[in-house]
């Protein structure tokens, strides 16, 4: 019989060897995302880890995603972004690999597949008009362009015109309305502002609640987020969400997306993750966690958002979307920022 000490040492050595081997065998998938709050993405990645046994390491970096990708094209295997326009730009710069997957092709509607199948949209939300339930009737609202009407003078609150969310919206205006009209609309909104643009989307809801303005531009998922927060619930209760342009081409949507980079070594695993993200299981979980809308028609709207738009006659939280192609929008962001600067959208009022 071996002495006790020797047995212990052998056991420890064995365990160490086993862990090292396991670590070597366990594959690591690298994901880069501009979502600085992992809470939106992590549940999906955790579920993928549980399913495949792979480990997913992430960089959740906020701004500068495309520049980092350009600087290190093969650092990550998968890109997950809240703004699919960035994937359009990344695709233009040759940073992405085409997605060849029958499963994804079958699941994702064609309008949500990116240019040359270099990425796909995995979720969307819309930028709607938040309005004061106490002071505005839904029947008074109609389109984005109507926000330039004199009746809204001094009644609109908005976050910075240079913020990503608004730049995306202005880009859609430019693609949809053309240069001249979009300038008039953005300028008109600027003229009708109640105060200097400040704060984030929830701050605008708070401003409506406090009577500082009657309308705001907000992303849809903020309403259930505020409703779930005891301190912000009064803000949610005070505002209604109006989906503009339902009688016309529909409301503009903002898209999240995923893509594969040209990194080698983990392509099969990367594709597995993308297929997982496109699956019913993941889409169901994503809708619950992020309060966005799924690209899969069969996946329902988040329970907390089903009532959104009910006051204007929408049912089940579904709405008409103005499907401006990403390709048409992606190049507009530079023009949008220039326009915002020229009209001094963010100037002190």
């Amino acid at each position, binding site marked *: 019989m071996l002495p006790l000490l020797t047995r212990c040492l052998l056991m420890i050595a064995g365990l160490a060897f086993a862990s090292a081997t396991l670590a070597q065998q366990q594959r690591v998938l*690298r994901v880069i995302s501009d979502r600085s*709050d992992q809470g939106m993405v992590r549940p999906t990645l955790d579920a993928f880890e549980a399913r495949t046994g792979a480990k997913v*390491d992430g*960089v959740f970096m906020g*701004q500068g995603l495309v520049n980092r990708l*350009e600087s290190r094209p093969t650092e990550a295997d998968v890109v997950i972004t809240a703004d699919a326009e960035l994937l359009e730009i990344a695709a233009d710069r040759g940073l992405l690999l085409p997605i060849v997957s029958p499963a994804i092709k079958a699941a994702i509607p064609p309008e949500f597949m990116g240019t040359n199948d270099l990425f796909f949209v995995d979720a969307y939300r819309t930028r709607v008009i938040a309005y004061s339930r106490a002071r505005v009737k839904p029947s008074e609202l109609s389109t984005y362009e109507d926000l330039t009407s004199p009746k809204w003078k001094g009644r609109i609150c908005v976050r910075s015109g*240079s913020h990503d969310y608004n*730049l995306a919206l202005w880009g859609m205006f430019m693609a949809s309305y053309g240069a001249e009209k979009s300038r008039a609309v953005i300028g008109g909104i600027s003229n009708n502002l109640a105060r200097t643009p400040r704060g984030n989307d929830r701050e605008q809801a708070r401003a409506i609640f406090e009577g500082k303005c009657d309308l705001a531009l907000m992303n849809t998922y903020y309403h259930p987020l505020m409703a779930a927060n005891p301190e912000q619930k009064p803000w949610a209760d005070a505002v209604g969400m109006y989906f503009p342009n339902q009688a016309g081409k529909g409301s503009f949507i903002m898209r999240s997306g995923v893509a594969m980079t040209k990194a080698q070594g983990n392509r099969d695993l990367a594709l597995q993750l993308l297929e997982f993200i496109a699956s019913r299981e993941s889409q169901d979980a994503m809708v619950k966690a992020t309060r966005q809308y799924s690209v899969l028609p069969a996946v329902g709207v988040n329970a907390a958002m089903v009532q959104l738009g009910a006051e204007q006659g929408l049912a089940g939280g579904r709405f008409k979307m103005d499907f401006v192609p990403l390709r048409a929008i992606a190049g507009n962001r530079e023009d949008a920022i*220039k326009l915002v600067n020229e009209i001094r959208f963010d100037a002190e009022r």
Partner: protein
Amino acid sequence: MTLSVDAPRLALTVALGVCALFPAGYLLATALPVLQQGGWLAHFASTTLPWQAANSLQVALLAAAVAFAAGALPAVLVSRFDFAGRRLVSLLALLPLLFAPHVTASTWMVWSSSDFFTSQYALAMHLGLACAPYLFVVFRVAASRMPRAFAELAASFGMGWRQRLLRVHLPAYAVPVAAGLLIVFAQCLGDYAAAERLGVPTLSLGIHSLWFASQSSVVAAIGASVLVLPTLVLVGVAAWASTALISQNPVPPAAAAASLRALRGPAAWAVLGWSLLWAVPGFAIPQVITVRWAEKRWSRTRFEDIPGDMLGSLLTAMGSVLLVLAVCLLVAAVMRAGSRRSWADRWSERMPWLFLANYFLPTLVLALAFVMMSRDGSNLAHWLGAWRDTAVLVVLAVALRLMPFALLPLLDALRRTPAQLIEAALVHGAGPLKARALAFAGHLRPALFLGCALVFMEAVKEVDLNLTLQPFDHPSLALKIYAFSRHQNMDRAAVWVLLSQLLMLLPLALLWWRMDRLDGHRR
């Protein structure tokens, strides 16, 4: 007997200069050849640049007033007078170090619906209060060395208090005043997170908007060149002034060792009240709110993340401190002590000042420079090898940015150390390095101590460099706080804010103790 270390000194001087200016130089080199490309610079200059620059200047001036009132004034009073609550005044002046300005800005903004807390006045207040502890340290050190004999002498020549203020005190404090203004302006120009939270359109925000809109690093470099060029000029002037205008202190320590004057009654209470007044918005109220939020959210906290995040922050901060310390020790080992005799001495002392350029640049711009410099195939990527994809890059960038906090006090201490001390140690048998260690211990140790404590605390709070340069799976308290505060979930961020404060408690305590020891011999 003098040490002959010219070649290493020259090499170190050049190396320091290159390291200090490399990011700014890289950005300029990227931007200058294509400055007119896409019309971005012309667009920026003709639209938002003028009023964003005016905003930034206004914020900086207001912040300077706040910082001087909350930091410099108590520092001079604590250095000159003995009164009940003197130690408390020191502590109150340093406590704002426990908060990053974007955290106080977000906390106030979420807690209060007043429009003030989303105005540029609020931004100036937050940035000013964030700088106040640094001004307290600078003025505390300067005032403790300022002999009372100057003022007494001037009084004996018939000068009243107004004349003494104008002709003796203000000129004597010119250097700390200039240093204080540099710190405030650097903080205000470089800040992005607090301005973004409050939606105040500053120059830094304008540059970032250009970058994010175009998703082009070249456009960002073009925009950043607006700040890089004046930064280099300003820092160059500061470096020149450090050796041309600031004379070595001709007053031996004995003259400075006058005992503190007693301050009693209403005057003492007024000083204490003044400090408490500034501590309220800068620390007390944000702290109370944060603790309350943490209590509310305690049961929903992801405790399993805490050890990793704390360890990640600790390791990154310690790494930055060690790197800064290594550079400082190298400078101490090679640079000449005592007065600057030749042009070579003066240039070797000016070079480290150039590190200020990285402090003036907005952190996201510095991060952009590092992203570009460390791209695949670059020299930096080759030199770093696999380390590029670890937290080492973050540590490098953070250390580069925070280097002035330790290096400049070190240079000051070196200047105050007579070269004869080294010679005396050599004569008594010490080797060259040990002789320097013996000679420098008295002055350099406190300066390094102070500097490293400040570097550690700033590194714990640092967000932008961590965000942009982070490796995969990089746990960090600052990143958690940032992520929550972006979506106004300050209540969820509260626990992480308290954890980051826990990490900073020890260096804060050491800093407080060090400030207290400044005039131990004068009691």
